[in-house]
């Protein structure tokens, strides 16, 4: 079936696109400055509760900042980490995987050992430990997650490369005297795109959730940035009497992760049915 007819793919893709648009046009969409505090109008409820303040449709947080605006700007942080981490981990993982798959032999064994080592590390713990030592910030979180999530890229790239290593067009290119790097970049890479894009979606969802978890534990993005995970952590003390403070950012995270996953699943199904 084609991509456009696959329900999950369409839903996931649309929601993700919407969120990307929200992130890009945040300054136009957000009714207030997400950093503007107003200590006299704290924890006001959303419009469907009594006591709500006009001008703040989703209420205010514990420092009087407009909740809707913070949620909107939060898309920027999650998407920045998602895309950034995937670019870094993709670059690392795909390079390692293609080299391992193409050269085989000792290169493969060594890279395999490195992959297994990375797989044996408890990712969240190591990320937390590094941030605890270095100090939290958006850049640090992005880098740390990017440097830790490359394993699936490597594994999939390696398998796919192995399958293509002896394909006809590769043999032809070699016969014509093309160099190894040329073959890897020009012949192999373009043809292993499909499964790697699926991996990219999985890892992107992972990156978004890991950043949220790190910020939730206080060892990720730092105040006053409107990371959804940080908003959950800041809001959890209020959850008994103002439950919207934790439901909204959680729903946003869920929506983003879900849409990415649906997109990835859809891609996988579409590719699977093509073969």
């Amino acid at each position, binding site marked *: 079936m084609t991509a456009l007819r696959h329900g999950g793919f369409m839903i996931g893709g649309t929601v993700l696109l919407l969120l990307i648009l929200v992130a890009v046009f945040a300054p136009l969409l957000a009714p207030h400055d997400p*950093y503007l*505090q107003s*200590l*006299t109008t*704290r*924890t006001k409820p959303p419009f469907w509760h009594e006591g709500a303040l006009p001008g703040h449709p989703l209420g205010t947080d*514990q*420092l009087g900042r407009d909740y809707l605006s913070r949620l909107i700007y939060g898309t920027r942080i999650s998407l920045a980490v998602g895309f950034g981490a995937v670019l870094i981990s993709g670059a690392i993982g795909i390079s390692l995987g293609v080299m391992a798959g193409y050269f085989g032999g000792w290169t493969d064994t060594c890279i395999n050992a490195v992959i297994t080592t990375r797989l044996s590390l408890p990712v969240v713990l190591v990320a937390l430990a590094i941030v605890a030592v270095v*100090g939290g*910030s958006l850049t640090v979180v992005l880098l740390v997650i990017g440097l830790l999530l490359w394993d699936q890229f490597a594994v999939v790239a390696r398998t796919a490369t192995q399958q293509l290593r002896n394909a006809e067009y590769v043999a032809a290119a070699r016969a014509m005297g093309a160099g190894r790097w040329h073959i890897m970049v020009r012949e192999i890479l373009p043809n292993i795109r499909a499964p790697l894009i699926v991996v990219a979606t999985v890892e992107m969802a992972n990156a978004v959730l890991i950043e949220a978890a790190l910020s939730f534990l*206080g060892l990720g993005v*730092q*105040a*006053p940035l409107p990371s959804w995970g940080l908003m959950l952590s*800041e809001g*959890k*003390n*209020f*959850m*008994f*009497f103002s439950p919207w403070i934790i439901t909204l950012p959680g729903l946003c995270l869920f929506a983003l992760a879900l849409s990415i996953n649906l997109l990835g699943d859809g891609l996988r199904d579409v590719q699977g049915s093509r073969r």
Partner: protein
Amino acid sequence: MTHRLTRYAAAFALLATPLAAGPGDNSLTIGLGEEPPGFDGYISTARDGVLLTRHLFDMLIYRNPETFEYEPLLATGWTRIDDLTWEFTLRDGVTFHDGSLFTAEDVVWTLTTYANPETGARSQASVQWIERVEAVDDLTVRIVSKTPFPAALEFISGSLPIYPSDYAQSVGLQAFSQAPIGTGPYMYAGGDSGQFTLEAFDGYYQGGGKGTPSIDTLIVRIIPDTATRVAEVIGGNVEWIWNVPEDQVAQLDTLPAVTATLGSTMRIAMIAMDAAGRTGEDSPFADLRVRQAVNHAIDRDTIVAELVGGDGEVLNVPCYPLQFGCDTGAAVVYDYDPDKARALLAEAGYGDGFSVKMSSYRDRNRAEAVQSYLAAVGITVDLELVQARASFSAWREGEVGLWYGDWGSFSIADVSASLGNFFNGSTNDGARDPEIMDLLASADATVDETARKQAYSTAIRLITERAYWLPMHTIVMGYAYDSELNFQANVDELPRFFLASWK
């Protein structure tokens, strides 16, 4: 380890629901937020640790929480022999939790051991004034200070628990810290890092300031996450907590099963600045104008009105107003004026602003509010909100330019315990101002009240003139507990469960 395994085996055997606690079996389940590093009161000096120390051990004297007067506890009488010596008559017939008899030997051993800096008492200020301790006879003891030390009785009643010398020596201090024995109204009855029990000691003597406990068992649970702790009180699984965030208190009080109050404390909050350049030679706070700018940049009235609650107040002095020597009239007061702040920064060459790290732990909202006010005048604050111990370390090791912390002075009603701890050249001191250090040293070395007051007034004037701190506000402590519990919060921030009872 075996203890844990048998417990799990038992749990497997019956998928049990929590026991009927509380008034039913005369027990009280308490939720604390940070695990104590053992029960040694000289090491575990965080407020939760001080709470436990007061229940497990006794000091020589008891300071009445309401009148602040001294009453007999382990000592029945005390007299001053000379400028350096206090003599204490000890109570007869007091036994430790293991049945051994309390004598002068225990006082001598405990205080001598901890007065020795190598033993590693966390608050050296509490013990370093002691020159020697001698037993006159089995029930009489003399404490001699190195120089005339005016706050001696305050520290003796507040920070110096007495340990059994035989037991502590035989097991060693490390083991003692895990399995303590004292003379206090409650004894340690076992447990582990997540939960332990204190049981009323039925051999506790009569006639001391602490009375006789009504509640038989204290079950202490360590629940680090504030939201979880509050949830447990709402659900009734925990019957007493403190450190409840101020905005939760009013809402919790509306629940019929819970009583929540805001109690005043002697704890003062401040923003300390790195004037001495511990973070680096180019610390912006070495410049007086920058420090003054910070003093003008923050709207403390709004912070107190909105984020402190209860009867918290704005402070203009680096001490708690009721402490001896805390002359509020001597201070230079800075008003909230962000324009002036910006002008001062520009004058100092920071017209484009600068970035700085600030560490805090008590309250996220207040820390972020401060961050926002400073951002408005061009100072970008990189906020590190961590646990108390880590925050203190960061300040003491000179890793941060700003520290928004607080200090309870161990509930000691003397200025030497508050500003005396922060401007004396110790690791707490971010100013390292020799003139102020000298003034404090002179005040510490005399018992003449007028001379001390004079020195402290001058010190306060200098500290505020030179804007080393931005004194913020007094801290209000939120308590939440079962409505059936008779409990009284005290201004010295020390919950006394030996005075509590079920209705």
